[in-house]
C-alpha cells in the first residue's frame, strides 16, 4: 500500500527539491508558450476570443432606419381647443392634443402606447377618449387613465416652439404625470 505517498516527490525517483526546476513540471505559462503546439492553441484561443468580441460588436447596429426622433407638427394656431391630431400616430407614435391639464389650456404630445402592456391606443372621437384594444384601458383627452387595468396616465413627449414658430416634438424625452413631470414646461406649449 502506498501509505507514504505524500512524502514522495512529485516525480518518482527525483528528490523533492529539484521539482521546481524540473522541466517536466509545467506551469500555465510554459504550457501556453513553451511549445509550438501550445503556442498554436494559444494563438487559436486568442483569435477565437477576438472573433467573438468583434462579432458581439458587429451585432450592435450603428445606424437605425427609423424616423428621426424630432419632427415638426405645424403651428400652434392650427390646433383649436379640443383637437386630437391623429396623423402622427403611424409614423411617430404620437397623439398631438390641444386640451386642458389642471385647468390650463395646453398643446402636448402623448405617446400612443398604453401604460398597461404597451399596445397602441385608439382615439375614439365620439366618446372623447383613448381606448386600448387589448385590455380595455381608457384614457381621457388629457391622457389620464380612468378605466381598465392601466396603472398610470399616458406618457408625454417633449414639445417646444421651434425657431420657425412651428411645434417641434422630440420623442427621445419622456415626461410622466405620476412623477410630477407634467409641470415641466418642456412637455407642453401653453395656448
Amino acid at each position, binding site marked *: 500500500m502506498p*501509505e507514504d505517498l*505524500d512524502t514522495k516527490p512529485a516525480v518518482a525517483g527525483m528528490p523533492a527539491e529539484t521539482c521546481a526546476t524540473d522541466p517536466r513540471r509545467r506551469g500555465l505559462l510554459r504550457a501556453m508558450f513553451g511549445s509550438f503546439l501550445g503556442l498554436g492553441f494559444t494563438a487559436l484561443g486568442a483569435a477565437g476570443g477576438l472573433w467573438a468580441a*468583434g*462579432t458581439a*460588436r458587429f451585432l450592435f*447596429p450603428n*445606424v437605425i432606419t427609423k424616423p428621426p426622433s424630432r419632427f415638426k407638427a405645424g403651428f400652434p394656431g392650427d390646433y383649436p381647443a379640443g383637437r386630437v391630431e391623429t396623423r402622427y400616430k403611424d409614423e411617430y407614435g404620437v397623439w398631438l392634443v390641444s386640451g386642458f391639464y389642471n385647468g390650463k389650456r395646453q398643446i402636448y404630445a402623448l405617446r400612443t402606447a398604453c401604460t398597461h402592456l404597451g399596445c397602441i391606443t385608439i382615439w375614439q372621437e365620439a366618446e372623447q377618449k383613448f381606448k386600448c384594444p387589448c385590455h380595455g384601458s381608457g384614457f381621457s383627452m388629457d391622457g389620464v387613465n380612468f378605466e381598465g387595468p392601466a396603472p398610470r396616465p399616458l406618457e408625454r413627449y417633449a414639445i417646444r416652439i421651434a425657431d420657425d414658430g412651428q411645434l417641434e416634438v422630440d420623442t427621445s424625452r419622456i415626461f410622466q404625470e405620476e412623477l410630477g413631470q407634467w409641470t415641466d414646461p418642456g412637455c407642453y406649449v401653453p395656448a
Partner: protein
Amino acid sequence: MDRPRLLRPRLTTPMSLRDKIRNSQVWKSIFRHPAPLDRRNRVVVVLTNLVLHVHPVSIQKHALRFGFTWGMGLITFFLFVVEVVTGVLLMFYYRPTIEWAYNDMLALRDVVSFGVLRELHRWAAHAMVIAVWLHMYRVFLTGSYKPPREFNWCVGVVLLVLTLLLSFTGYLLPWDQLSMWAVTVGSNMARAVPLVGHEGPGQQILTVEGIDMITSGSDARYLLLGSPAVSEETLNRFYVLHCIAIPLVAAVLIAVHFWRVRKDGGISGPT
C-alpha cells in the same frame, strides 16, 4: 459528550484542482473515458468524441502527405464553415426586399462595425469554388474515383453543383445592376432545358390535345424566378435557396461524403 476524533491515516495526497475537475460528474458526463495516457484510452477518446472521430484513429502514412491530397477536401469544408458563420452574421442585417437589399449590402460595408464580413463571405465563396475544383482534380489524378469509391465521386459531383448553385443564388442578393442582369442571363438557360424549358428541345412532346403544357408561364425558368422576369419574388426565392435550402442539402451530403470516405477504406493510397 465528546467522542474522540477518529484519526484515519491519509492514504493519498490531497486532490489537485485538475483531479477535482476530472473527477467531477460534469466532466465525466462529457468525457466518458480516462485521460488518453495509454494506447487503449487514446483510441477510445477519439472514438467517443464527435469532433475527433471525424478523423480515423489511425491512418496510412501517405494520407498525411500534403503532396498527395493538397488538403483540398478539408480546405473546402473549412471554407464552407466560414461561409456559414459569416453568412449567418450577414443575415442579421440583410433584408431581401427591393427597398432594402442594395442599401443593406452597402451598409454592411460602410456602416456596421467590422464591415469586412461581406468581403470575407465573398472571397471565401470564390476560394471555395476554386478549392472544390482542385479537390476534384486531385481525386481524378490519384484515381480515387475508382471502385470502391465510385458512389462517393457521384456525391462529390452533386456537392460541386451545389457549390456552384450557392454562388449563383448568392450573386443576386446584392441586387445591383450586375447581379440582376447576370441572373437574368443565367436563368435564361433554364428556357432551353430539354422537356421542361419552353424553348428547349422536346418541349412540344408535352402537349395535351394540342395545348402546350410547357409555356413561358409554366416552365423551369418560371419556377426558378417565381415570376416572368427577375423581380422581388425572385430575390426572395434566391434568398431562401441561398440561405436555407441549398446549405441544408449540402450539409447532409457533406456528412454522407465524409462517412463514405471512411467506409470506402479511407483516403486512397498508391496501389
